[in-house]
């Protein structure tokens, strides 16, 4: 079979100041299967240039676990972008 880029649906969440910057807390998004979290973030940064400057102070999670930026995403994944936490 030829390598065809399949489109999958993932859920994306933003919290804290990122939510303010992006202007929304959550959306469902279609992207190429096996896209990385880095690519997903870049897609938002392209749309909202302000977001790019937060890149170094954001951690990502996939399915409620901290995840590296090179993590590949698959159908049904829930990705969140998390600014520095300040609970307690």
């Amino acid at each position, binding site marked *: 079979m030829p390598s065809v880029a399949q489109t999958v649906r993932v859920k994306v*969440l933003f*919290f*804290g*100041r990122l939510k*303010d910057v992006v202007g929304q807390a959550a959306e469902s998004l279609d992207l190429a299967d*096996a*896209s*990385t979290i*880095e*690519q997903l973030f870049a897609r938002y940064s392209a749309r909202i240039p302000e977001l790019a400057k937060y890149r170094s*102070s954001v*951690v*990502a*999670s996939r*399915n*409620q*676990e*901290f*995840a*590296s*930026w*090179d*993590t*590949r995403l698959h159908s049904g994944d829930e990705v*969140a972008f*998390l*600014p*520095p*936490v*300040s*609970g*307690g």
Partner: protein
Amino acid sequence: MAPPLHHDDIFELVREPIDPRPLIQHVRAPEDGAIVTFDGFVRNQSHNRATLYLDYEAYESMALAKMREIGAQLHEKYGIHRVAIVHRLGRLEIGETSVFIAVSAPHRAAAFDACRFAIDTLKRTVPIWKKEYFEDGAVWADGELPPAPVATRGAKPAS
């Protein structure tokens, strides 16, 4: 994905005032000898500016998972009896408790070490955010960046 809970601990996110008494009662047993509690509450100032109130939000499903992870670590590392960790969300007034932790153990060293580990780890790893409201505006509090995996083991470069 989380290991099954072997312990009768309490992990909660709530939107009402936190009552410490049932939490302490829950962790307290005749085979223990020590309970250490931590009560974190809203100060009337932050960086020398008078605070009006705070607003907490969380990535709730992940926050609860992380709180449960902390609990599991307390049992493994310190041999505690029980732990209760409750964090409040939403608007909190000055003096109101944002987080309450109670740890019981047969001996005091374990109870102290575990309670402190719990709040230190919560503040570094549990996805909760605090917005501080002042007379002249509101800011997201400075926080700590959770330690996240740097690269997936064996990951190939993204195409």
